[in-house]
């Protein structure tokens, strides 16, 4: 009797997952004949949003003029396809110029390079990206193990390796599809593009 119940429950559970899989129809990397051109439908992107929320915060005290995706690409040294190794411990840098002296806190992440659009960083290399806490609200919180596309630029401050941008940042899903991390129109328009194709497209936008 007990065995029968377990069997029925297992079949029901399996059927439920098959149903779920068919409803979402998120293709996996391996199952694609031409992953370079595959793009998810809006429904599939919407279904992924629960796990990869769209961030739209802006700093409380600053006035900002929203840049375009083109601006971000043009200003970045490179676009990395990288894995998040984890948050770094916040650190401080002292700054002094003219009438203003200050010590600011910085937050950020350690990343492992999967691919570097500019071709300077090797696969498996570790980089640290960080930003001043005054603009923390502009950034989504990244989880360890996440894969992302991220615009970065080499910092000119001692003790700070790379600046990074939340605008033009994309989450890469298990199936290898990119969806925008920040709520900006021209980035959202690229939601659901396969990571290889997106990297190529975005890097191709950069004005040389």
């Amino acid at each position: 009797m007990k065995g029968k119940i377990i069997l029925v429950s297992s079949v029901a559970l399996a059927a439920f997952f098959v149903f779920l899989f068919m409803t979402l129809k998120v293709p996996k990397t391996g199952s694609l004949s031409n992953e370079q051109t595959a793009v998810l439908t809006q429904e599939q992107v919407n279904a992924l949003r629960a796990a990869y929320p769209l961030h739209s915060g802006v700093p409380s005290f600053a006035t900002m003029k929203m840049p375009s995706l083109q601006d971000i690409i043009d200003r970045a040294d490179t676009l990395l396809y990288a894995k998040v190794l984890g948050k770094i411990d916040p650190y401080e840098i002292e700054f002094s110029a003219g009438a203003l002296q200050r010590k600011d806190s910085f937050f950020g992440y350690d990343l492992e390079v999967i691919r570097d659009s500019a071709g300077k960083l090797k696969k498996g290399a570790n980089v640290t990206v960080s930003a001043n806490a005054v603009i923390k609200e502009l950034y989504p919180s990244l989880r360890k193990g996440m894969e992302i596309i991220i615009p970065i630029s080499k910092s000119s401050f001692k003790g700070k390796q790379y600046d990074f941008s939340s605008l033009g940042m994309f989450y890469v899903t298990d199936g290898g599809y990119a969806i925008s991390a920040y709520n900006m129109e021209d980035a959202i328009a690229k939601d659901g593009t396969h990571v290889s194709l997106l990297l190529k497209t975005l890097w191709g936008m950069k004005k040389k």
Partner: protein
Amino acid sequence: MAKFSKKVLLFFLGLFLLGSVTTETLAHEMYYMGSSPISLKWNNIVSGRAQLKINGDNLSSFYTSSPNSYYSIARDSWNGAAGKVSCMQESFSSATVRFYTADATLWEFLFGLIFQYDFLGLAEIFSPSNAAIIDEYSAINSQGKIAYANILLTPYTSSFTNVTSVRYTMCHEIGHVLGLGHPDIGNPNPSTPQSIMLSSFTNQTYYSPQQHDLDDLTAKY
């Protein structure tokens, strides 16, 4: 059944009334703990008016010289607003609100190489015990009081799209110094009224406090 419907109707009526009272009496704050606003007010209030002593000695001529006279227009923009604010010109050493034109290295230090051209201004507010108010926790620790502030403006004046965007930014930052938050983001009930406190400059054509902002001041002070 009829009794049940009546109860449901009363429940929704209650909810509606609660909603209308809430939007009428609460100003948009800069910080919230969950959905509870953390009120921040200027510390020096005389006869119901926040006393802002403003100085612009560290501004570059772009911000101070005629014909645009950005600084003096911004300094006066909140003076007398809703009968709750007095803005006075003050010497640098005695001022409680100091404007600065940041230099390029400071702007990079704050916003990084990728965003340095996107940020137009930044207000930094401090409690009576000299602590920077930068998040909900420091806001609570400040006992809700703002004692002084710095307003930093971009060295990249070509980042401003037009004359209005300079004026909007400077007036907006003084709004933060008064403790006002953004109505359109960072609060539990975001909306986009005509307001000098909207979080980003898009194509606004005004550059002084709007009715929404005066209502927020009245609710706060």
